[in-house]
């Protein structure tokens, strides 16, 4: 069954069109990530799905039901917010119980669900604490627990990891991935971080300026981006773009090469001066000024001793390079 169907969703704030004709479907048990630069409308889209904003036009269906006029609490959704949004006056237990009490669940059901959620999230020792007595990571787990106990058809995550530090972010990312495997519910996850998108998603939806740029599996989007925006947005370090004419391609087009597809070799068609080297231990990123708009980035595996200022030649496999026309659309070559 389809967990969520969006049909021709538009949203305007006064004269500003934030979402433009969004069509999308999310299957049962699917993990979908909305990703895009800030201001692309991804959070607004999530709020439209949640019912916190009304769609200006279009139809939202959750579990087959049209929910355009259904209040958020009755849509069968649960949401995790970036700022945790825990109720400061309630304990962890109270935070998780509130929505269930509002639904009119029995005392026993509430207790059972809280027990299960707190076991899954290792929150048992903290059930009687207030949010102010918890660390950031614990607060975010409570927020996730508050969503789990409702057993929703659809989980909505609004940049849940943005307030956590780097180490905790990776841990919580793993936890969310595990939760998705355990709960098997459909999840929609909004982020501006392409790493989170790539690691968590079954399906990535890339948004820009209120439009869907491309939908697909992470590897699909990485290997076959539909346009220059998607190619440049996914992947870190970002894809290199060079004027196709400089390497014998059609004029006006640009050639996109992933940093790991460039290699150092005197016989290559490109050459330049090393301006900076990032040594990460496992990888080495080399930045080269090669007369292109942006310096080129080369990602080498392992550790390499490359002097800054040295001149190097660069080569690539033409089969791994992607061709984009002047409008940024992908072209076969």
């Amino acid at each position: 069954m389809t967990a969520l169907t969006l049909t021709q969703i538009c949203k305007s704030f006064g004269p500003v069109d934030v979402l433009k004709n969004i069509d999308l479907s999310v299957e049962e048990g699917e993990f979908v990530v909305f990703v895009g630069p800030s201001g692309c409308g991804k959070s607004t889209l999530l709020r439209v799905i949640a019912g916190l904003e009304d769609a200006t036009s279009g139809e939202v269906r959750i579990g087959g039901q049209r929910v355009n006029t259904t209040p958020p609490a009755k849509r069968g959704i649960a949401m995790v917010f970036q700022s945790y949004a825990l109720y400061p006056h309630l304990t962890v237990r109270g935070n998780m119980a509130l929505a269930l009490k509002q639904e009119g669940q029995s005392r026993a059901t509430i207790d059972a669900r809280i027990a299960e959620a707190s076991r899954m999230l290792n929150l048992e020792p903290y059930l009687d604490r207030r949010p102010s007595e918890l660390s950031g990571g614990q607060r975010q787990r409570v927020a996730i627990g508050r969503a789990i106990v409702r057993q929703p058809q659809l989980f909505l995550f609004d940049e849940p990891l943005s307030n956590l530090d780097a180490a905790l972010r990776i841990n919580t990312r793993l936890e969310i991935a595990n939760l998705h495997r355990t709960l098997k519910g459909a999840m929609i996850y909004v982020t501006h971080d392409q790493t989170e998108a790539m690691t968590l998603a079954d399906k990535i939806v890339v948004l820009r300026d209120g439009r869907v740029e491309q939908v697909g599996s992470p590897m699909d989007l990485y290997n076959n981006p539909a346009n220059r925006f998607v190619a440049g947005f996914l992947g870190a370090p970002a894809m290199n773009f060079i004027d196709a004419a400089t390497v014998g391609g059609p004029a006006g087009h640009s050639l996109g090469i992933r940093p790991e597809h460039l290699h150092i070799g005197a016989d290559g068609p490109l050459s330049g001066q090393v301006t900076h080297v990032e040594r990460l231990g496992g990888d080495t990123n080399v930045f080269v000024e090669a007369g292109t708009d942006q310096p080129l980035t080369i990602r080498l595996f392992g550790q390499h001793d490359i002097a800054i200022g040295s001149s190097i030649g660069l080569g690539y496999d033409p089969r791994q390079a992607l061709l984009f026309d002047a409008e940024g659309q992908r072209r076969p070559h």
Partner: protein
Amino acid sequence: MNIARHSRLNTLAMHGALIVYTLIALFPVFVILINSFKSRRAIFREPLALPDAESFSMIGYQTVMKQGDFLLYFQNSLIVTVVSLFFVLLFGAMAAFALSEYRFRGNTLMGLYLALGIMIPIRIGTVAILDMMVATGLVNTLWALILVYTAQGLPLAVFILTEFMRQVSDDLKNAGRIDGLSEFTIFFRLVLPLVRPAMATVAVFNMIPIWNDLWFPLILAPAEATKTLTLGSQVFIGQFVTDWNAVLSALSLAILPVLVLYVIFSRQLIRGITSGAVK
């Protein structure tokens, strides 16, 4: 105190300045208090001396207790102040929530209109207010005072609380909506506790002028049954003779309830329950 950032000299100077200011601020209260326990002659002979065995006298308090119904005046003042504050806070917070939370046509205009009251003193409208009170038969009732003070306090309350409510996290309110809380529950259970310090500020700002007001009680409710404390104390101040013992005693007694209310609100002022709600 962090030793690295505070030199001993700075700390001393800071505390010195604060102590001096405290002394200056408390001096009049102190003088009122000590003189309320002295005989009339001792008040004039040595106004700054502490009451001793010879000059000690409770005559002021006795006069206050005998003259008129001071307990009733107290009660009136307390009722008017507390009920007015309750309405100012309730309606002010509700209006502020609507202004800060909902997008509707004329939102900004409405906010400006409500804030306009801060700049226009309500006493300008005294004659019209008296007319209205006479027409509605509210003259010489406590409701006349409560209504006027509520109207007087609302503009500042709305203005201050709107700003504070804008700072309450949207996520928190939305989490409540998703959990199925009604807008009223969100307002009373989530937003109000978070703006408690602002509510306390508004309460303190409004409390003192209401408690001390002489103007409206004199005009709208001068009857014996509705006299407030400030109005009741005026019997001791005559054109030619003033019973200083009684005036000072009445003033000393009048400080107490305000002190209690202030302590209640100031505890709220410093309680930071917002920590942990949002990052």
